[in-house]
Structure formats: structure tokens, C-alpha cells
């Protein structure tokens, strides 16, 4: 099974919840940190990197001696990653989407495949479960190829918990695609609600069921509850606003380390989601 933890808004507590779910599941879990631009799961799980593999993407390599100067490669590149200067083609690797169209289009074999490293996947074993973190190299723009390769670490016989990136654009979409359920973590503020609505709309178009965790709940107002009611969404759990939890978080303690009493709530939540 694959359960993603997403939000819309940044900073609502995705990583906090993803780590808590993995800690609750123990040996049944695989934790994947798909927020490859800013991976954080490992910060709350004391462990070291056991192994690390480079993640590469295909980029074209230009061979001057074969080039006839037709300019077809630059014409077909929809990502502006090739500039044609007569018989010299300039490749902007950072813009390349690895579609291979230029290679297919070259009549003269002047382009071959080469690889470019965009980041790494680290494996750690912080407890009973493995943690796979994707880390995009600073300066690289495209996180999706790294997320796709990271998701290959999912194990069929385990419950895979995927910590998704914020937002609703392609990094989040590629993280949640293929998941059985998405837990949306929100905060009871207008920002939280605004971005939660965007995330719900995204998941509806992808036809992935979802439910809500309200984090930093102060028991004031019914902003999220009203929205959930109108949209027939379950509120799976409330995590109370607590200075103790905030201070624990800032000292690299996981949620269940600061508030072990919440473990039972996470167990019930997982039972409910597994049964769906």
C-alpha cells in the first residue's frame, strides 16, 4: 500500500506526520522523503547514511564533426534547451527534460545520449523501517525525475509512507500519483484552508481518496471542519497546538517522542485508512 502525506501549504506538518506514521508502523513501513528540494525526514530520525546512489537524467551530447547545421534539434526542442549557431549547437543541460526528441530528429547522428547527475538517493535505517531520501543538487531546477526514481524504492509488501513536497504542481503530483490514499495535513488558518482546497481539487482530478489532519489545532473556530463537511472529507485526526511539541520539534524530536500519547491516535488512523 502507498500512503502519501501532502498539504498544499508549506510548513503545516507533513514531515512531522509522515515520520509519526512510519514510527507507528515500525517494521511494516517504508518511509520515502519525496520533498527532494528540501528533504527533512532524516533530521528527526537519528541515523546515518548507509548507502547513497547518484540519480542521473539523460541529456544530449553534441558531436561537432557529424553536424550538418540543419538546426532541426533546436527547432524541435520545446524547452529551449538547445541553441543553434550554424554548425554549433549549444546545449543548456539544466533546461533539458530528457525527452529525446532532439536525438530522434537529428538526421546526422550528431547527438548521442549522455547523463547528468541531478541528485542522490540516500538510504538510512533509523529504526525498524528503512528511510529513502531524495536530495536534489542545489542549482538543479527539475525535481520530478528524482522523485520518479525515488518511488522505485517502494516495497509491495509494506506500507509505503511518502512525504510529499508542498504545493500542487508537478513535484507533488508525481509524488502522490499511484498512491492509494493521501493524508492532507493542514493548519486552521485562512492560508491553510486556501491551499488545502487546491490540494483537494488536485487529488479529485487524479481520483485519489484523501482525508485531513488538522495540525496546531487550538479548538478555536471551525474553518477546516466547515470546509470538510461541505466537501464530504473525513477529519482523520487533530494534533493540538502545543508549545511542548513545538520545542520538541526544534530540538529534533519526532512528534511521538514529544507526545507519545498520540501514538494510539495514529494507530487508529492507519487502521481506518488500511480498511478503506
Amino acid at each position, binding site marked *: 500500500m502507498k500512503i502519501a502525506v501532502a498539504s498544499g501549504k508549506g510548513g503545516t506538518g507533513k514531515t512531522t506526520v509522515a515520520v509519526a506514521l512510519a514510527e507507528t508502523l515500525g517494521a511494516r513501513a517504508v518511509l520515502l522523503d519525496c520533498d527532494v528540494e528540501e528533504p527533512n525526514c532524516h533530521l528527526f530520525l537519528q541515523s546515518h547514511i548507509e548507502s547513497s546512489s547518484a540519480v542521473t537524467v539523460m541529456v544530449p551530447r553534441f558531436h561537432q564533426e557529424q553536424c550538418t547545421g540543419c538546426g532541426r534539434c533546436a527547432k524541435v526542442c520545446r524547452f529551449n534547451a538547445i541553441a543553434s549557431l550554424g554548425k554549433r549547437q549549444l546545449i543548456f543541460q539544466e533546461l533539458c527534460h530528457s525527452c529525446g526528441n532532439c536525438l530522434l530528429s537529428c538526421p546526422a547522428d550528431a547527438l548521442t545520449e549522455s547523463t547528468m547527475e541531478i541528485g542522490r538517493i540516500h538510504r538510512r535505517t533509523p529504526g525498524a523501517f528503512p528511510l529513502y531520501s531524495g536530495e536534489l543538487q542545489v542549482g538543479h531546477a527539475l525535481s520530478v525525475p528524482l522523485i520518479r526514481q525515488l518511488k522505485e524504492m517502494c516495497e509491495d509488501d509494506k506500507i509505503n509512507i511518502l512525504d510529499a513536497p508542498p504545493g500542487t504542481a508537478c513535484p507533488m503530483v508525481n509524488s502522490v500519483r499511484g498512491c492509494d490514499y493521501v493524508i492532507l495535513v493542514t493548519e486552521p488558518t485562512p492560508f491553510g484552508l486556501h491551499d488545502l482546497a487546491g490540494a483537494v481539487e*488536485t487529488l479529485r482530478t487524479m481520483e485519489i481518496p484523501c482525508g485531513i489532519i488538522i495540525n496546531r489545532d487550538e479548538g478555536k473556530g471551525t474553518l477546516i471542519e466547515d470546509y470538510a463537511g461541505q466537501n464530504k472529507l473525513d477529519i482523520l485526526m487533530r494534533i493540538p497546538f502545543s508549545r511542548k511539541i513545538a520545542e520538541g520539534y526544534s530540538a529534533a524530536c519526532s512528534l511521538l517522542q514529544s507526545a507519545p500519547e498520540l501514538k494510539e491516535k495514529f494507530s487508529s488512523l492507519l487502521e481506518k485508512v488500511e480498511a478503506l
Partner: protein
Amino acid sequence: MKEILILSGKGGTGKTSLTGCFAQLSSNAVFCDCDVDASNLHLLLAPELQETEEFYAGWTPQFMEKGCTQCGICEKVCRFKAISCEKGFPRQLPGLCEGCGACADHCPTGAVKLSPRHCGRRYRSQTPYGTLFHAELFPGEENSGKLIAELRRAARAEAEKTDAGLLISDGPPGIGCPVISSMSGVDLVVAVTEPTPSGFHDFKRVAELAHQFEIPVQLIINKWDLNCELSEMIAEFCRGRNIPEIGRIPFDPIFSECLRKNRTVLSASDPSAALNIKNIWQKISSLTF
């Protein structure tokens, strides 16, 4: 005209809350919400929508049965596995196409056409503090970089036209394409971090990115008293990297109280948080760069 971008790396450190305050304190400035994926700045500035422009970027293929010989070449050339010819005629699988056009370029009978992809919308709004440029990217779309570039172009044109001295932009989280697009050509990055392991970790990556772009960074530590020791470590890191610290904001429930009412802390009856932010803004706006 100078451009300031507020970034953090980590989401939720207070970028938008502070950008809202800076916008309200500024004079003769234009504002831009570069977090097109989850734009929130407009919730604080009471905007009145003036103009809407549809945003098209990239391409989406249309598969026509007329002329299609079901050869399956389109599926073969698609490296994103976005086409299935399982049932004879090709069909697009949702959410996978990246708009490279290989299917159209290599169809032997021209049965695949490319149409411009409607990815989002951008807006120009008037607020009591200045003109706001904001946008929304439709769920699941990419091309946020291009949308941000168009948005910034429009904001800069407005700033030139009205002789505004400053363009203040609320940045997206992360370090990827949206951040890179927001960052290129700005004069200053104001980084907002928090004394947590995630905050520090993510701030370091954004500082590294700004360094690669050779853009100066100044730092604000938000909720600093949640962990004084870690705040000191962050400050020490910044001293070593020539990143001036321009302010610290203590953790204060007044921020979320105001946020719940779609307001910034400048409107709170207790003026202490507002005074602190005014001092920070004073430092930023009096910088010569």
C-alpha cells in the same frame, strides 16, 4: 528600481506574513506573489482585481483518428509513458505528458497535432498599499517557472511605468524551478528562517542557491526564542558566510491570531510585534544596493 525577494527554503517560516507587513509599510512599491503554486499574499492585502490574463505554456497533443494508422510510433517515442496505444488508437494518460512534442514530430501521417496548454492565470490587482501581481497555476501543471517569469515581467513593467522604487516579491518554498525563476536578477534575498533542524537545513540550501546566483542575502530569524541555542548556531553560520542578520522575531501567538482574521500583525492592538517588524523594514528599505 530594486527587487527584493523573500525566501526561506522551508515552508511555513513566515515569508508571506512578513511580506504582507513589508508591503503595508512600504511606500512607492509594487508587489509580486511568486508562490504561484499556493499563492497566499492576496489574502492579506485586500486586493481589488483589475486584470486577468490566461497563461498558456507548453503543448498538449491532440490525437486524431482520421489519418491514424495505429502504427504505435507515438507511444514508442514518448519517454514519459504518457501515451497508450493499447486499444488501437492512441490516448493520452493523464498527468504524465511534458509537452515535448515528440509524438507529433514523429507521427508518419501527421495525425497528432499540438495545442497550446492552458496552465493557469495571472492577475493584476490594486491594494491600498500598491499594485499586486499574483497568479495561480492550475493543479498538476508544470511551467511554474515560465508563469513566474511572465508575472515578474509584468510587475517590473508596472514598476518602471509608475516610477516605483521597489518591487517586493513573496517567494515559493524549496530550491527548484519556481525559486530559480523567482530569484534570477533580483537585487536582494531576504531569508526568513526558524530555529528548527528543518528551518536551518533548508535555509542553508537556499543560501547556497543565492550564492550560486551571486545574490546577497540578509537573514531574519522568526520564532527565535523557541530555541535560543539553535538561533545562535544559525547566526554563527551566517557570520561565516557574510550574511547579515537584520532581525529576530520572538514566537508570538499574535501572528496566528491576526492571520486567522486575514490581517498582518501591524493591525494588532499590542504594538510590540509591529514595532519590531517596522525596525526590520527600516533596515531593509534603507539599504543601498
